[in-house]
């Protein structure tokens, strides 16, 4: 397809065995400024190639190529301002809301070209949902917050169906027991952690295929964070998840693969365990050992 795909060493299944020459090959790629590790997988759910993102004249993302496998959890880490949110927001075209933002390259959800100018973003965003850094429940009741998506997409025809969706979504988000008695009270009246789980429930209520999460726990205390991490682990059975996080422990706990971004470039993608024990790239190593970031 493109140049990055051509370098044979970087293509492979998740558990492809490393050839003896890998270290030197990595070294070459490292020198050439290419992504090291295993950015691509077979049969990806989403596949991005040569992605460039510009804010006005300023380029924020350079030549990023990455696959996200089906039902895989990919964590994105990197120092602040390196473009993690920017890249994540490309995946369901949330960047459209920023006037000066321009995206180039090929981004695909299975066979669907995400940046096809003729594409209607509404069904796309129903397939690729998003959870934001700060919990942002709508100024509506808990019930209506969760029912919002199914209603606008016309997923239900009867009230009982809607009730069922609301209940299962809240259950899957681990919130049902806490709110089942006050479904009609405002969602904004919940605690921060509950609000974030409400936002997750709201997202899974439209049964998306992919869930994008941008630092979903950064506003939460450790207990709420633990709940959400548990939830992510459960959700990964049914959903494909891309999560941006500043917590390396979190990335280590929840993700299958970890992608390290640096100054708008994708430096390394590897199995999470490898990234945190024996990264291929010296920049990754510097970051995870806390020498900067």
């Amino acid at each position, binding site marked *: 397809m493109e140049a990055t795909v051509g370098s044979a060493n970087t293509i492979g299944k998740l558990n492809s065995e490393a050839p003896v020459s890998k270290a030197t090959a990595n070294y070459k790629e490292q020198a050439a400024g290419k992504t090291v590790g295993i950015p691509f997988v077979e049969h990806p759910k989403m596949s991005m190639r040569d992605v460039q993102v510009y804010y006005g004249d300023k380029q924020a993302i350079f030549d990023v190529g990455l696959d996200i496998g089906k039902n895989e959890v990919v964590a994105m880490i990197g120092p602040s301002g390196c473009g993690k949110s920017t890249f994540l927001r490309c995946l*369901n075209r*949330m960047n459209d*809301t920023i*006037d000066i933002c321009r995206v180039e390259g090929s981004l695909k959800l299975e066979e669907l070209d995400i940046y096809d100018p003729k594409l209607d*973003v*509404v*069904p*796309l*965003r*129903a397939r690729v*949902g*998003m*959870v*934001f850094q*700060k919990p*942002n*429940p*709508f*100024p*509506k009741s808990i019930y209506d917050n969760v029912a*919002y*998506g199914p209603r*606008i*997409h016309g997923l239900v025809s009867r009230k009982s169906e809607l009730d069922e969706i609301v209940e299962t979504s809240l259950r899957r988000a681990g919130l049902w027991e806490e709110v089942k008695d006050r479904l009609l009270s*405002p969602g*904004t009246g919940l605690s921060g952690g509950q609000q974030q789980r409400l*936002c997750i429930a*709201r*997202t899974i209520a*439209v049964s998306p295929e992919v869930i994008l999460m941008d630092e979903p726990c950064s506003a939460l205390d450790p207990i709420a964070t633990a709940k959400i991490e548990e939830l992510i682990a459960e959700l990964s059975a049914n959903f494909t998840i891309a999560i941006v996080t500043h917590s390396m422990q979190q990335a280590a706990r929840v993700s299958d693969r970890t992608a390290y971004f640096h100054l708008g470039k994708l430096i390394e993608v590897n199995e999470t365990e490898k990234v945190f024990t024996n990264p291929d790239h010296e920049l990754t190593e510097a970051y995870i050992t806390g020498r900067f970031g």
Partner: protein
Amino acid sequence: MNTSSLLLTIVVLIAVAYFFGRRRSVSLADTSQGGYRNLNSLPFYYGTLTALWCGIPALLVVALWLVFDNTIIDSLILAQLPEPVRALPDGELGLVLNSIKNLAAENMTAGDPEPYVVAAADSLNRITAISQMAMAVLGLTLGMSLAVFSWFRIQPQQKARLQVEKVFKFILLSCASIAILTTVGIVFSVIFESLRFFQAVPFTEFIFGTHWSPQMAIRADQVGSSGAFGIIPLFTGTLLISAIALIVAVPTGLMTAIYLSEYASSTVRSIVKPLLEVLAGIPTVVYGFFAALTIAPLIRDGGAWTFEFLGLQMAISSESALAAGLVMGVMIIPFVSSLSDDVINAVPQALRDGSFGLGATRSETIKQVVLPAALPGIVGSVLLAASRAIGETMIVVMAAGLAANLTANPLESVTTVTVQIVTLLVGDQEFDSPKTLAAFALGLMLFIVTLALNYLALHVVKKYREQYE
């Protein structure tokens, strides 16, 4: 020394006091470690404190003097007048006093002044000069001595900043109370005059009467002028016109706000928004003659043509509630649009993102997320517009007429509460006739209605807030 040069002197004195107070604190400071470490407050506060000690008492003396010296001097002069003159009734005594003052100011007086007037004018001049002098001496010595006193009190441990802040807090408080006291004063004067009105006209007749015709007989033999004070036609007129205005302004203004905040590019916004605000700056008189000279004839001709076309026999007056209401609606569009635009913009982008992230379209997001979140503010802007509409007078005078018809037909001429207040008070009725007092009663009613409206709005908004914040 006249008053203005006295004030100027006091200002100079204040500046001098500031300078010396500051200098003394600096000289007392221990600067060996850099800065003013041993001073309790910055030198600025010591200077200000000295200046306040000097300025406030001096200015207070001058102010009190100016308030009271006229009455005191007047009574002194009156006491000097010969016995028969002092026995004159109040009105004539006032005339005598006036001619004394005129003579003293070397203005012309009618005819030859009486000798006692000349003498009084002389002594008036003398007393005034003495009073001026005394005011200056007292004010300046008080200011200066207190400044010196506070200058001596300056100590490094003195809590100058706390004292200055206390004084300024008191000044701020008194400014705030001016507004409150004025309101209270106005309300009470309106209430008292209204009570006088209700002694002449029964309250129930006023509230439930359906006929408004405030012309009263000035002489007992005048015909056809009994005076009827039923406010229902006035309130229906007010309601009719305000309703028409709001029907025009609320949808237009709200749509404008939505367009500006959600759809328009920033260039369009930066042009349209100021232009809209120009609408709010047009004097209402201009709207008034636009309504009277352009819209009202248009409605009359258009209506006449329509009725003729339909084969109906109906006359349309050239003054109509519709004309006034339409133009008033245009006038209050910017109130709705500008304020709503602000509150819509204040809805956090995160909420929109959340909605877009679920695949909602722009219009779904606006209808279901943005507008509900902005609702309290929108209600507020609508109420502001409504109170503008209820209080608006000029457009109604010019376009809707003065006839107090009890009607719901927008093509007829009606009148409003505020217009009637104006017409009651212009003209040369004596001031304690029921006709003029009725204006106060109307004002009171208007006040109560707007107050109730505001209270209701606040209540609604608060309830909504509690639910969703």
